[in-house]
């Protein structure tokens, strides 16, 4: 409804009707990049990288474990960032971005936990230990779930947006606190009996493979989030004329093909 007013502002692409086609054009490129990089990373990780001296082949989990762990943390930060922007500038697109990020972040968080657990069994002898890093990752998963559950439970989108933004920001303030408290808690109790082993001198192929996979995860995230945001925009803006036009076009495209 306020579209014309917005398009005059500096943030032209913050207007959903400008962002929507842009996202539609960019997403496939990111998806393609993700695919290519994943294949390259897998090739590096599974075929080129040498066997680890101490761990044998299990260590190959690292090529998804670490990118997933990184992504899960970055995505939460991005979520909090967009939430803050939304609360301050009152732009609907920011809220949409933060809500579109959440499921992907939660997915990566779960993947980090899952791969870590599977890695832990052969190396530590247990699927799970209450190590600081593991624990804060688990709490991060709960923060994601809380955000998703809250925004889903509220039907009115305006309320959902702003309530979710508040919890994302409160969570973001707490993430470092959680991280350090957990670290302290763990080291106080049991010293260094368990710690994430670092390959002493990581072979360059390993490092490169890991970085390639990390960039691939970035590309994948961007593509998925853009696509998800597009659906959310359509839903939110269904009362506007431009969505009407978009839908018309979709229908003709479908009719044309049928």
């Amino acid at each position, binding site marked *: *409804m*306020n579209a014309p007013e917005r398009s005059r502002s500096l943030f032209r692409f913050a207007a959903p009707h400008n962002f929507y086609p842009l996202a539609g054009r960019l997403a496939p490129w990111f998806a393609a990049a993700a695919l290519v990089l994943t294949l390259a990373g897998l090739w590096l990780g599974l075929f080129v990288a040498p066997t680890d001296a101490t761990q044998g082949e299990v260590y190959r989990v690292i090529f998804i474990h670490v990118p997933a762990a990184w992504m899960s943390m970055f995505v939460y930060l991005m979520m909090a960032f967009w939430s803050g922007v939304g609360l301050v500038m009152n732009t609907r697109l920011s809220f949409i971005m933060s809500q579109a990020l959440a499921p992907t972040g939660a997915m990566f968080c779960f993947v980090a936990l899952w791969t870590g657990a599977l890695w832990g069994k052969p190396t530590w002898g247990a699927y799970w230990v209450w190590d600081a890093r593991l624990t804060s990752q688990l709490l991060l998963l709960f923060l994601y779930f809380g955000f998703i559950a809250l925004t889903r439970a509220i*039907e*009115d989108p*305006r309320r959902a947006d702003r309530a979710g933004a508040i919890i994302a920001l409160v969570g973001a303030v707490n993430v470092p606190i959680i991280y350090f408290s957990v670290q302290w808690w763990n080291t106080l109790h049991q010293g260094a009996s368990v710690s994430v082993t670092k390959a002493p001198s990581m072979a360059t192929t390993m490092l490169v493979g890991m970085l390639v996979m990390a960039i691939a995860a970035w590309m994948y995230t961007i593509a998925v989030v853009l696509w998800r945001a597009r659906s959310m925009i359509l839903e939110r803006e*269904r*009362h506007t004329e431009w969505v009407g036009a978009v839908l018309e076009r979709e229908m003709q495209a479908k009719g044309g093909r049928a």
Partner: protein
Amino acid sequence: MLEAHDLACLKGDRLLFRELAFCLQAGDLLRVAGPNGVGKTSLLRLVTGLALPEAGEIRWQGASIRREREAFHRELLYLGHAPAINDLLSPLENLRFACAAAGDDSDEASCTRALERIGLADQLDLPSRVLSQGQRRRVGLARLFLSARRALWVLDEPFTALDVNAVADLAQALSEHCAGGGMVMLTTHQDAPFTRTPRVLDVGAYAC
């Protein structure tokens, strides 16, 4: 003076009304009318600032109520569907708290007088939980007699559950508030014996 320009209200998928505008001067009694579900309650909540309009603006004494919220709320008395009565407190305690929280200073004596005036002399110290429907309603309405200094009264179906005498009494009180230069905006489906026939705002006319 209260003015609303070009208001629109969206609920879920449905645009309840749009381009709704009205203006309320000192001494006006405005009845918001329309069939069930047309958006009267929604309009009242927009006017109080509890909900945000999809489009449009509301001004009090020329300033947007979103910008000058505190000044506006000092002049506003809103009684909604929910009577804001706590079940564990007596009518007297409820009334005193309502006044104190709103920032009206009122002592025990004036609260007691207001409750007696509205017909709860025998229920002053009962827990509100056991009151009948009409009596609960009255506890909420007693605030009217302590809020004469607030210029704008916004009342959502104030006559619900009241018996015939109480309806007449309340209509009288509203008329007096207007006569004293106040403004009243209310919804109701019942006829009430106002001394002057109220202006009517038909929300249905702005429905889409």
